[in-house]
């Protein structure tokens, strides 16, 4: 054998195996699995240590996910450390930010954060940005746009700080735990996965180390550089409530029922249809009315997509929805279902809404039901700024699903108190009217004139339709014409479309 081996080696010039040349590969680690986990050096003692190891420098980009919603502690915790360590001029690229992130205002004032990229802003931080505290405009992206930007290298993340409800010593992280109880739960980690995959350095922050292997995993160990264990990654009650309740507001129920009626009488209500609804209010309640028709007609959905709530899970468990594609879980029922139900799958933001890839889930939707702050007579939708011009929302997957679906339905009341939802022109265009098919309000249903197919089949089914201009006029006749808002001349927000191009800008509001 050796004769042939030597001959072969001489012929090919390939390297001969030398015992112990590479001790790491042959010297056995005789310790047990338990001991191996304890001895692993991915876990470091503090965020500061992890940051030092990451090579983060001033001027770089850091990222976070928003699966902890208003219960998040990660962003504020990390920024405090970075502030102490003396960093400056960082770009904060969180998948979204909420009202709990108002401390970011101080970090902007100190110069730690000079750029922000996010899906949305709320609360004090949003107001401060609207009043112009930042030098550089905030860049607003849809979920699909952010995923695409990260994957294509248009948004390069230097260090990703990803909170996780459970993580094993090698970095397999999950939005729930299978070992014991764990302190909190968030379900899907769809937005975090994309950061984990493409960021240069990934630090997982957890309050619950579990044993290897933490499978099935939301984030794979191969992407994780360091793990930091903290007391608490977030407020469990604010991360997730027990169960989302259907709205009881008669106005919302009325709108939801009308929207369901439109879906049932469209060509997109058939056995095997796919659907995404909103996570609350009328846009969620639609599924309740739709389910009645599904039962009556023995129609099942092939999948439900999106932000997933307990209501969707119940229909899945009843057998009305075959599979669930979950990019964000909204309540404990959904998170538990992700954990336990075989066909409730976690998908990342890229799979969810990348504009270009074949098979992107958002492009496979028959129906999407979305809410809106404002809609104008060209069917453009605003989900970012309020009637006072101040930033107060998030783009989310709105433009992605509106464009990707065969039928997009916007549900909103004609008026919210004295604030009209249907206007001549929205304050901020987020989703272009060409992708919006139907607007369902409590005082009339309008179909985009380009959808002659829908106008025909809805009219044939005796669903009364109105012109969107008439809706706008009606709103104005009831509340009056709103004054022009006191916008200044500074651009505080860049609103990008799915491909990163700028669809609108947000100006500052004078106080």
């Amino acid at each position, binding site marked *: 054998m050796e004769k042939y081996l030597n001959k072969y080696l001489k012929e090919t010039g390939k390297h001969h195996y030398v015992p112990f040349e590479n001790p790491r590969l042959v010297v056995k680690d005789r310790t047990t699995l338990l001991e191996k986990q304890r001895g692993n050096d991915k876990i470091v003692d503090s965020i500061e240590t992890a940051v030092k190891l990451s090579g983060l420098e001033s001027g770089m980009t850091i990222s976070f996910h928003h699966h902890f919603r208003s219960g998040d502690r990660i962003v504020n915790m990390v920024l405090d450390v970075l502030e102490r360590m003396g960093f400056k001029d960082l770009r904060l690229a969180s998948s979204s930010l909420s009202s709990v992130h108002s401390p970011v205002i101080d970090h902007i004032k100190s110069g730690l954060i000079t750029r922000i990229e996010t899906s949305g802003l709320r609360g004090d931080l949003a107001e401060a940005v609207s009043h112009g505290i930042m030098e550089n405009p905030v860049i607003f992206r849809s979920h699909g746009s952010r995923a695409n930007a990260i994957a294509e290298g248009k948004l390069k993340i230097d260090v990703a700080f990803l909170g996780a409800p459970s993580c094993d010593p090698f970095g397999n992280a999950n939005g729930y735990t299978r070992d014991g109880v764990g302190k909190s739960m968030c379900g899907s980690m769809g937005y975090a996965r994309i950061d984990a995959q493409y960021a240069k350095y990934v630090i997982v922050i957890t309050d619950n180390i579990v044993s290897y292997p933490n499978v099935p995993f939301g984030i794979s160990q191969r992407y994780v550089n360091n793990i930091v264990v903290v007391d608490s990654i977030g407020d469990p009650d604010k991360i997730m409530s027990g169960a989302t309740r259907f709205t009881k507001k*008669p*106005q919302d*129920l*009325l709108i939801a*029922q009308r929207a369901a009626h439109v879906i049932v009488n469209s060509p997109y209500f058939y056995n095997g249809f796919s659907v995404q609804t909103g996570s609350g209010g009328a846009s969620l309640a639609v599924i309740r009315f739709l389910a009645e028709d599904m039962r009556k007609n023995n129609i099942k959905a092939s999948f439900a997509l999106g932000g997933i709530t307990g209501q969707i899970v119940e229909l899945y468990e009843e057998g009305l929805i075959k599979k669930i594609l979950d990019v964000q879980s909204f309540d404990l029922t959904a998170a538990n279902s992700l954990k336990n139900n075989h066909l409730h799958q976690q998908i990342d933001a890229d799979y969810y809404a990348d504009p270009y890839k074949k098979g992107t889930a958002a492009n496979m939707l028959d129906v999407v039901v979305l809410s809106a702050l404002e809609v104008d007579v060209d069917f453009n939708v605003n989900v970012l700024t309020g009637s006072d011009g101040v930033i107060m929302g998030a783009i989310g997957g709105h433009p992605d699903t509106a464009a990707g679906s065969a039928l997009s339905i916007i549900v909103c009341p004609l*008026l919210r108190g004295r604030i009209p939802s249907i206007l001549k022109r929205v304050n901020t265009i987020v989703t272009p009217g060409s992708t919006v098919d139907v607007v369902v309000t409590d*005082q009339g249903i309008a179909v985009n004139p380009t959808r002659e197919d829908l106008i025909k089949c809805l009219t044939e089914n005796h669903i009364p339709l109105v012109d969107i201009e008439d809706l706008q006029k009606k709103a104005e006749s*009831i509340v009056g014409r709103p004054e022009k808002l006191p916008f200044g001349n500074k651009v505080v927000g860049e609103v990008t479309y799915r491909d990163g191009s700028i669809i609108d800008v947000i100006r500052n509001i004078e106080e």
Partner: protein
Amino acid sequence: MNGNKPLKLRRTMLFCPGNNPGMMSNAYIYGADSIMFDLEDSVSMKEKDSARNLVYQALKTIDYSPCELVVRVNSLSSEYGKADIEAMVAGRVDVIRLPKTECAQDIKDTEAEITKAEKKYNIPLGSTKMMAAIEGALGIVNAYEIATASKRLVAIALGAEDYCANIKTTRSPEGSELFLARATIVVAARAAGIDCIDTVYSDIYNEEQLIKEAQAIKQLGFDGKSVINPRQIEPIHKVFTPTQKEIDKALKIKKALEDAEKRGSGVVSLNGKMVDKPVMLRALRCIEMAKASGAYFEEKEE
């Protein structure tokens, strides 16, 4: 066959407190046949003036069509009644609803105030209609005289809570304590040629029981029911919607009627049998109800 009063559906009357501007501003979106703004029991005494002003301004400003607008005023025996009636007539309300009606005189006294107000504000006399709520034993005894006390009356209604207290019993799910009151009101209304409306069902989350009650009172002959929450409207409309079988039969009768009119004959026959006038009226009403509830759409003639 012509010259009958136009059919006004009163399947549901949505109760709306007169001191709640938020609710009043969009009460019309829910599709109730009538909306009743209340100045009486749901408004505290301190706020009677407030409510009157709110309802008046709302009547003058907001477009509630196609709902019929009803206001329940305070009774004339209170210090608010007169001012209520004057304001509501000036506000051009469709119907003034009188609470706790006991006898024909109550109607006549109210009518006098309405007429006075119509004259004062140059409103065509008789255009303001009336509705009488019977909420006690005496009112039931006098039901027919109440129902015929004025040409303005379009309906009489039952107020069960006060009625039960008045006859010294409690309300039950089966409603046996209301049987006489309900039957009397239906009979009186029909004898007078006006509508009859049943009392509210207050457990807004118990849709099953609401539907049972609506079916029972429909069978008794009621035209509709008062509702206190928009979610009660659709289930009740469903109960009052004719079935497809009933609609098909009614359409056949209508066709037979049209054929007879074309022939110039006064005798309407279907399948060899003569169709009596009441049957014809019922069929036409069935078609009207079917149209209003969206169960039937008149196809255009080719």
